[in-house]
């Protein structure tokens, strides 16, 4: 069994006296997709925020590729190979789709403290951006300003930007949010192609997508892990049925 690309141990986040995330231990391996599901308010987004560095943990450990990264600043974690997409689209609205990805790709230059050559002349950066856009299915829309993209395209752009940073670990927060049937199917296909080369953590409400993609499922309720295992194991788990899957038809 290979080393997990991402590992947490007893991860905890307290807000005042409230534990939004409590005692969460999980692993993500390259080539496998680990889905995290649970009702609203279960702490799934907080968990992703802890892993991406948006929030600092109150307790526990996070290990990335064997290295401890607990409490590191977000930009450091990103540089170590973690890419994160947002539930509520968090892109550069006034820039084109290409520029959005180009900036993401530029982050992988050894340093952006470069003042002379025009940014658009860095061929390797442009290529990485174009590749990411193509992978996310936005090749034809590169020149469109992000504010003018459709909602589904913006979600694709979210993923494209994450890919452009060439991460080892992908943290995806509800990439399918607000998408129609056709767009969702396209996104699921995209995610499926990505699993082979990345360790993926997916937070989602769309159960069809989750069961189609996940190798491992973790169910969270009220900040705690209720159950964890293969999709079949989870489907058969009574507690999970009661707490969540019973009314998960949204």
């Amino acid at each position, binding site marked *: 069994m290979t080393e997990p690309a991402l590992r947490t141990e007893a991860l905890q986040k307290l807000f005042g006296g409230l534990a939004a995330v409590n005692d969460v231990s999980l692993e993500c391996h390259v080539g496998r997709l680990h889905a995290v599901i649970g009702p609203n308010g279960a702490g799934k987004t907080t968990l992703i925020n802890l892993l991406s560095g948006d929030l600092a943990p109150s307790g526990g450990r996070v290990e990335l590729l064997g290295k401890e990264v607990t409490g590191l600043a977000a*930009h450091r974690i990103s540089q170590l190979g973690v890419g994160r997409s947002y539930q509520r689209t968090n892109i550069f609205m006034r820039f084109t789709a290409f520029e959005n990805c180009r900036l993401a790709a530029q982050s992988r230059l050894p340093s952006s403290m470069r003042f002379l050559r025009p940014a658009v002349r860095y061929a390797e950066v442009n290529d990485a951006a174009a590749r990411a856009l193509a992978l996310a299915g936005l090749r034809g829309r590169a020149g469109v300003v992000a504010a003018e993209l459709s909602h589904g395209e913006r979600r694709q752009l979210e993923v494209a930007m994450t890919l452009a940073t060439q991460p080892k670990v992908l943290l995806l927060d509800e990439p399918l949010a607000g998408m129609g049937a056709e767009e969702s199917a396209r996104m699921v296909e995209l995610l499926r192609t990505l699993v082979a080369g990345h360790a993926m953590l997916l937070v989602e409400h769309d159960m069809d997508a989750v069961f189609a993609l996940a190798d491992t499922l973790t169910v969270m309720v009220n900040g705690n892990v209720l159950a964890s295992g293969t999709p079949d194991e989870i489907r058969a788990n009574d507690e999970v049925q009661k707490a969540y899957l019973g009314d998960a038809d949204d």
Partner: protein
Amino acid sequence: MDTQPRSLQIILIAGLVALAAFPLVGEKFYIQFVTKVMITAMFAMSLDLLVGYTGLVSLGHALPFGLAAYALMFVSPENGAAGVWWSLAVVAGVAALASLVVGLLVLRTSGIYFIMVTLAFGQMAYFYVHDSKYLGGSDGKYIYVRPVLEIAGWQPFNLENHVDFYYVALALMAFVYVTLRVLLASPFGRVIAAIKENEHRMQMLGFATFRYKLVCFVLAGMLAGLAGWLTAAHDGLVNPEMLSWHQSGQLLMMVILGGMGTPSGPILGAAALKLLELGFQGMTKHWQLLLGGFIVLSVLLIPRGLAQLFEWRRRD
């Protein structure tokens, strides 16, 4: 992105040609006036780097400007001239150091608080200089001879000559303009623009945004220092008012009026305010009424600043 409308490019080139030809036909008073306007335009461009491009609204930009002016005064001998190169180097160093120290502190805040903290540091510098006898107090001090540039005995220009000074100022203004354009197109510049758009996302993409803002703050300070050096050399006088919030405030007005985040905005804003001031002063004793009225009307009628006047609607 930042490609300018054709009409504006043509006007800028025409303007440059007109400025180059002006000393041939202008009187000394007006040549010196336009020199001051060009220096102010440089000062405004340096502030726009912070305000328009990075989204950092500083109300203390007079600090590096004024400190640079005082630095030149310090290194200028009473009976001789300072050398252009090394006095510029000293001044740039002073401005950079001051901006670095202030930046490390103020960049921890944002929004209105950033504005106020930059104001605070500007005011502290103002009061320190104002109340210091050895710096000349509220009267300030003189610089008796303008800096001299000598290369192996040859002087390419003589700053004591107002026409020479004019062309030096024009060349430097063009230099600052080009520098900013290059800077903004560079990887650094793209990071800065993106920080203004969505700083949080930039951090998530792996950029240490604080560092970039700090470098930008220092660069803007150095350019302000250049303007300070020129102003002190031109006026032959440094006084605490160069550090006051009025100075910072008026500069900010020029940047906003001209159109923030546009390459030519600061130049338009500086030119407009200075020219209107001169023009209105010639018309009536109560010129502030006219200038104030102009400002109020332009805010109400031209939402994005004077640079907007040159944008012919290509897109909706």
